[in-house]
């Protein structure tokens, strides 16, 4: 047979890349199952199953194209959505989330590679705005031991509420029952994927080692969050909490490592990736410290998603030829 050069091809496929993302998410998922028990498993099962099924149905019957769910991208969206929801969220909330993520945010733009916004995040934000009660009823980490719905606030919500009531940082956390070590390992309330910093970092290391993602986006987000938080803390430690707290709580790590690095909705080269990351970090901190929501990374990523075409147009990669 005849074809133009090259006649060799690398081993990368879309499916392999997506499989690696799933593998990288497994440690964090395992930790969330360990701490939250059936609630976390059930949300993930519903989310993945509905995302994959929905994409298959849309491709087969609406678009009338051969279904390509075997590329695992819908499964990744489903898993990421589950990691962004409170463990034990009711099934109809999860279902609404997957319909929004796959049906509206992904397939209506033409499917994989065409969506301007991160589908899982669109799903989460729509749920957050539509069902604020269910979306902020965080189960406390109790493992499989009990099925009682014991709920509590996340550290970030605790902080926001306290500050709004005129307390200082020290007063708020005087009787808090968690340490930084626990933040690192994940014994705190929160959505399934944001509880264990260590497990997320393990996933990050795996993605880097497999060359699935490049470090520019996560590192610039985390550095911006740390710098922003550090300056505020240095200026007024009574009003603002230290940067380490910002890095370890909420969705910063999950967002920086797994959501912001989504290929389709992030810039194409290092310069753009760094601009994108700094933008996300700064917006997250603005929302966290001055906005009304306790957490802002989802909004920050979606806002910066909208800026990606512009970034790609003006931040060009390092060219070989320096003139012109």
């Amino acid at each position, binding site marked *: 047979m005849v074809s133009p050069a*090259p006649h060799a091809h690398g081993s990368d*496929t*879309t499916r392999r890349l997506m499989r690696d993302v799933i593998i990288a998410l497994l440690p964090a998922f395992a930790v969330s199952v360990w701490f939250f028990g059936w609630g976390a498993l059930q949300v993930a099962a519903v989310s993945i199953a509905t995302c994959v099924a929905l994409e298959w149905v849309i491709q087969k019957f609406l678009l009338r194209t051969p279904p390509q769910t075997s590329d695992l991208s819908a499964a990744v969206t489903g898993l990421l959505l589950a990691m962004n929801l409170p463990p034990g969220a009711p099934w109809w909330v999860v279902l609404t989330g997957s319909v929004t993520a796959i049906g509206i945010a992904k397939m209506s733009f033409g499917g*994989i590679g065409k969506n301007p916004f991160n589908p899982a995040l669109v799903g989460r934000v729509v749920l957050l705005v539509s069902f604020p009660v269910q979306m902020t009823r965080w189960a406390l980490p109790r493992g499989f031991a009990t099925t009682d719905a014991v709920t509590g606030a996340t550290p970030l919500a605790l902080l926001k509420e306290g500050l709004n009531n005129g307390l200082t940082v020290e007063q708020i956390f005087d009787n808090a029952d968690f340490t930084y070590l626990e933040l690192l390992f994940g014994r705190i309330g929160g959505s399934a994927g944001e509880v264990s910093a260590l497990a997320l970092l393990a996933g990050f290391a795996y993605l*880097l080692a497999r060359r699935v993602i490049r470090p520019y986006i996560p590192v610039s987000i985390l550095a911006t969050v740390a710098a922003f938080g550090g300056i505020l803390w240095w200026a007024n430690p009574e009003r603002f909490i230290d940067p380490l707290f910002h890095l370890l709580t909420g969705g910063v790590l999950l967002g920086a490592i797994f959501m912001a690095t989504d290929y389709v909705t992030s810039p*194409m080269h290092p310069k753009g990736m760094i601009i994108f990351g700094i933008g996300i970090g700064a917006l997250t901190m603005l929302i966290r410290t001055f906005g009304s929501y306790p957490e802002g990374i989802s909004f920050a990523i979606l806002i910066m998603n909208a800026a990606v075409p512009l970034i790609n147009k003006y931040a060009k990669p390092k060219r*070989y030829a*320096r003139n012109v």
Partner: protein
Amino acid sequence: MSNIYHLLSERLPLLRRGLGGGACSFSIGGIHPEDNKLAANSPLQALPPEGTASIFLGQHIGAPAEAIVSKGERVKTGQLIAKASGWVSADIHSSVSGTVVAVEPVADLSGIRQPAITIQVEGDEWLETIDRSPEIIREIPSDSAVIIKKIAAAGIVGLGGAAFPTHVKLSPPPGKKAGILIINAAECEPFLTSDHRVMLEFGEQALIGALLLKQALHASKAFIGIESNKPDAIRELQKIIRERGYELQVVRLKKRYPQGGEKQLIDAVTHRRVPSMGLPADVGVAVQNVGTALAVYEAVQKHKPLIENSITITGKNLPQQINALVRLGTPLSRLAALAGGIPAGTGKIVCGGPMMGKAIVNMDAPTTKVTSALLFIPHGEAQRRKASNCIRCAKCVQACPMGLEPYLLIKLTQRSRYDELRANRMSDCIECGCCLYSCPAHIPLLDYIRMGKGELKSSKLKVENYPTDGHRL
């Protein structure tokens, strides 16, 4: 482990120097395809002439040569049979002795008929002026005009694949002087081993060829760039340079494709970058292939024209891996027979390396001056996979050694946005294939880019021919 190394070395240039053991490399993009140098240990074997030889009149860049022999005439090995027609053109010599049986078109690799001279082989009688003794002649003529004249008379062209007449390349335009000569011995294409064998078996001759080229250019420095996967060739050449006191320097290059691309090699060795649409002479550099250097030695010191070249015959299913010295115009089918015939389960036969070689339709096509390899690709690896949607993973951008954005170029091509294609430097593309190689969605990126480059050229012509209609394009 190697993943972590690549990762680190890509991020930290200083570390790259350290971990790479001091090996040089180009600074943007690149890929790491499987090496597959299966024939590296097979010595060059001379393939005696037999049957017929069909020699194309246009096997170089520029105007085709004009035949000066006619049907029925007897020719000797090394005799001039076609003269260069113009400045950018090259002489062609008979690679065999015998009788001219036809001066008419012959089908090439793609089955397209090209003007050629076909000679029926009768014995192997060489022209008397050619020195066929193994003795190495080390004295170098001091007059560069003499060297260039002899190179032109031997019909030498760039053997790296470009086939640009060497005497033209050695005469840079006025005002531009190449102070640095780089001999390209990177051989970065997987599977190819013919340059490697040349360095091991004709190392000193190639080095003298390099000195001749250096003299012809009046260059002050000359480097020989070799990829680190050929440590024996690096050692061998360094040994000869040390013993003979030649003013040449071997540069170890990191194994990375396309290390042997002209622009990449210049970057790796001199840290200079050729401007867009520019020539190496613009940054004071000239690049010549190591095979060309050997041909230059033979032409200047031995009066032997370019009538044979070294060819690798290789493939994963091939029973024998072969490097052969083959006379010009030998049918490819004879090379296949030498290696035991086309192996079962072959899906594609490629003339050249897997990254930039050309898939063959016609196995009876004759070899040319720049044929470097005959590669048999098994069926399973030959077929391109079905393309799926672009997932914007940016792996093509990361791989492009020219710092272009292949994903963007193909979209602009599909929409015929010529101005933006120009602004995004479509014409800088060297067609190395890194983008297509690294695409996880198997999108034929390079095919589209080639199409776009073609359209860009014709759109320019249209604008120039019909200036009033320019705005419609």
